[in-house]
């Protein structure tokens, strides 16, 4: 029986060489709240575990050009405590903070949530709606890619075998902007999303929607960006017709399966409901009102 080798590189270059050296038997470790559980259950059997947290900046959050750079391994707890981030991107923060429990929050990262590539990952729809960009390091330097291009199926990503996700870039927020994430779980916590929906909007001064992004989770093999749902809101004041169009667009985009967690009918119906509710919370936040905060379903 061979054991598992644990290494903790101090630079991204070392991490990449370690990945290459492991030749397919290496796994990156951020918080480990997915990876260690999978190893214990026998579903993941790496020979080398490469801990990313020693790479400078990868577990930190900083502001840049009015936007934010969230390190791929920054914990949910750190994200939740970041005043500026909470104000600018309440939907991203609430999604990140829904992951697990207080204990899990101390470790769980957005990078791990995305790269574990569960269709139900909570932070992913919120990051997609926010228009977040991934900063990815590889043997030939860095590249950037939108979050919605990373997951390619359950447990699968478009990252190369020797690439490391370094950070998420969140753009500077225009005035009158707001975002929100809602998920449906049968319980109140420690559960996995049956459906998730995130909406990010920007309004003009009178309150008309000038841009909107809608993303849904757990209703397809990956989280989806539903552009038609965003378009349904643009130009509207969130009137019933616009909201009905949003719901219809979401329902059409859903490609769910029936499984132990929900049926196709249920997921489709509730995705539309949650998208509508999230849109209204995002609007309220954009208008500077936090009335709807915490109204997660």
């Amino acid at each position: 029986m061979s054991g598992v080798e644990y290494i903790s590189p101090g630079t991204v270059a070392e991490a990449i060489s370690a990945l290459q050296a492991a030749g397919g038997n290496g796994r990156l470790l951020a918080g480990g709240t997915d990876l260690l559980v999978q190893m214990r259950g026998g579903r993941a059997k790496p020979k080398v575990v490469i801990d990313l947290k020693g790479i400078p900046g990868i577990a930190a959050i900083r502001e840049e050009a009015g936007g934010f750079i969230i390190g791929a391994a920054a914990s949910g707890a750190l994200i939740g405590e970041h005043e500026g981030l909470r104000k600018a991107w309440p939907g991203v923060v609430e999604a990140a903070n829904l992951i697990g429990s207080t204990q899990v929050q101390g470790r769980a990262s957005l990078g791990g949530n995305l790269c574990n590539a569960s269709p139900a990952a909570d932070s992913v729809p919120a990051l997609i709606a926010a228009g977040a960009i991934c900063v990815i390091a590889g043997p030939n330097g860095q590249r950037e890619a939108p979050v919605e291009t990373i997951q390619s199926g359950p447990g699968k990503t478009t990252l190369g075998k020797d690439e490391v996700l370094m950070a998420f870039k969140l753009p500077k927020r225009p005035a009158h902007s707001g975002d929100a994430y809602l998920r449906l779980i049968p319980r109140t916590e420690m559960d996995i999303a049956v459906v998730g929906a995130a909406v990010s909007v920007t309004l003009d001064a009178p309150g008309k929607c000038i841009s909107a992004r809608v993303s849904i989770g757990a209703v397809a093999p990956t989280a989806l960006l539903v552009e038609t749902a965003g378009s349904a809101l643009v130009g509207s004041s969130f009137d019933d017709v616009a909201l009905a169009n949003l719901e219809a667009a979401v329902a059409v985009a859903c490609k769910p399966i029936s499984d132990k967690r929900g049926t196709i009918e249920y997921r489709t119906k509730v995705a539309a409901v949650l998208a509508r509710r999230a849109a209204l919370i995002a609007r309220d936040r954009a208008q500077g009102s936090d009335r709807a905060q915490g109204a997660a379903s």
Partner: protein
Amino acid sequence: MSDGNQPPVDFKVVGQRPIRPDGVDKVTGRAQFGADFHLPGMLTGRIKRSPHAHARIVSIDASAAEKLPGVKAIVTGVDLDVGAGGDIEAGEHAAAMKDVAANVLAGDKVFYQGHAVAAVAATSPEVAAEALDLIVVTYEILPHVIDVDEAMMPGAPVLHDDMYTKGVTPKPAKPSNVAQRHVMGRGDVKAAFASAGVVIEGRYTTAAVHQGYIEPHACVASWGADGQSTIWCSSQGQFLVRAMTARILNLPLSDLKVIPAEIGGGFGGKTTVYLEPVALALSRKCGRPVKLVMSREEVFLASGPTSGASMDIKLAATKDGKITAAEMELRYQAGAFAGSPVNLGCMTAFACYDVENLALVGLDVVSNRPKVAAYRAPGAPMAAFAVESAIDDLARKLDMDPIDLRILNAVKDGAKTVYGATVRYSAFIETLEAVKAHPHYKAKLKPGQARGVAAGFWFNIGGESSAAVHVDEDGGATVVSSNPDIGGSRASMAMMAAETLGLPIERVRCTIADTTSIGFSGSTGGSRVTFATGMAVVEAAQKVVADLKRRAAQTWECDIAHVEWRDGVATCLDPSKNVKPLSMKVLASKSAKTGGPIAAEVSLNAQGAAAGYGVHVCDLEIDAETGRTTVVRYTAAQDVGRAIHPAYVEGQLQGGAAQGVGWALNEEYVYNKQGLLDNASFLDYRMPVASDLPMIDTILVEAKPNPRHPYGAKGVGEVPIVPPLAAVSNAVSALVGKRMTALPLSPVSVLAAMGKG
């Protein structure tokens, strides 16, 4: 409130809320649970389990595994030796030892995914895991059946070709999956239905649910070179583990010592064995101690859930709401082997009500699921779900208050139950009245909310128990209990001893003895410990008091009739003697001069356990767009006799309600088409988490203390899981606008019922 049978309540300790003596160890992690024992040279055991729902074992080839360095022993079903067959009384129902043995290590067939097939003991967990992979089991896969109604259909795959339905005459010509047919009844049901003012009908189903204890099964077994062996394990009864393990390995009881660990929950699920005989068989083969610990997945796959049920019910009543007759067929899943609690379902179904004409049929049905184990009031919650739903329908149909309707039909002392017992010391009506008077029941509901009410019954048992009370040399006392402490029984045992001895509670400690250190006892189950073992403790303490009085009389050279024992002090009532009172401390320090150590042990078979009745009220709301239910207020009332430690009694009520709400809303075993369990983890087997529930309010009804117990105790641990299924479902049905008949009431099923799924 008092029924006059009891002495006036002027207790000093009973009824107080002292800190539990095992509490600090449990919150600091010092307590030793089943997995916490380590011995020098100990090996890691692992169990190889069936990947199939139903298959014949063609062959097991362990030769490669045996050659792996570090593998010290491998056992399969042939290593068991179920001595003389027969049954063992396991708490609430008898266990057929042949089946228990075939469950811990399969014979020639596997009957469910996760069924144990072989076990290894190795020098490390890694080697043990590798060895499991090297054991080659060849199966002939057989068709399987999961659903209870399907298992009864003609043409269903038959699990056991020697299973001919018992309770049917003449004996059926062919084997089937119906292990037994129970029939109970009285009166003339047909006539009563013919003249009924109102008839209510329904078909109800509930899912199999797991006890969900936080501690997975775990044990260490060590075979001695001379055949004397020891097992350390967490269970609900060290004597039961001894009996079953000894029977399965054909050992004399006196050669096997079982040392009880702390137990992290059992709820009935630890009233049987899964690991202990296997670990001991491994240890016997290699002469080294072996530890076996289940993973959570193994707990779900291979330890007992309780039965899912399918039931048909029909009630007849007068236009005024008096129930005149009931007909019910209950079909319970037994799992892979006979022995569902369907007979208990039949017995309890109408135990709350005085119904003249009854016809009950219970069917015990096997299917390719893990063998069911006891779960808190085994068999009663499902039956109560159907009965209390039907009664709710009746209340709605007659536009009657649900509590008034139940008061009208409630059993009273002196009534005969369908299973022959006479109702005694019951406070069901008082419990219903207490709920009616409670602020919760009077509170107005907010728009979008509904309220459900349901009742429930459990027998509670007595039975065989042993306990000792030792007076320590410094005048304190040690209570030796024969029952694992699951719900705080160390506290209640110590309290009853302290009350009887006249000592402050801090001066009495309680320990749980192994099988060689105290007389036999039945398991911690059936809500029996405070009643039965408590009775043994009190009798032992009374013997000690008698002895102390004798010693005081001897010291004073007076008649023992002149010695009074009060508050831990002997006082001489003989006016001719000018002597100072003798405290426990003084008497203990001088015990050598008055006859030696002061101690007493009592073994008894406690009779006179009194049944308990519960009434629960649940307010909830439903998100009409997602079908998600939120319980907003919950109150559990119960006839508890007298609460020895009220906080722990309240805890029992709250815990039972929480488990029952989970049963009602989300818990279920989900099987795929291959007959494999799809949700063997706490992620997808959804028990309630703390934030799912409001603070559960409790009402302890002490109107009728049990006169057969020295302090009036009735069993309290099981009743509270009986009412919640219907309490929740009755409220959900009110909001949905139609009768919900299938549990769980998950968001998906509720939204579908609302016509919006």
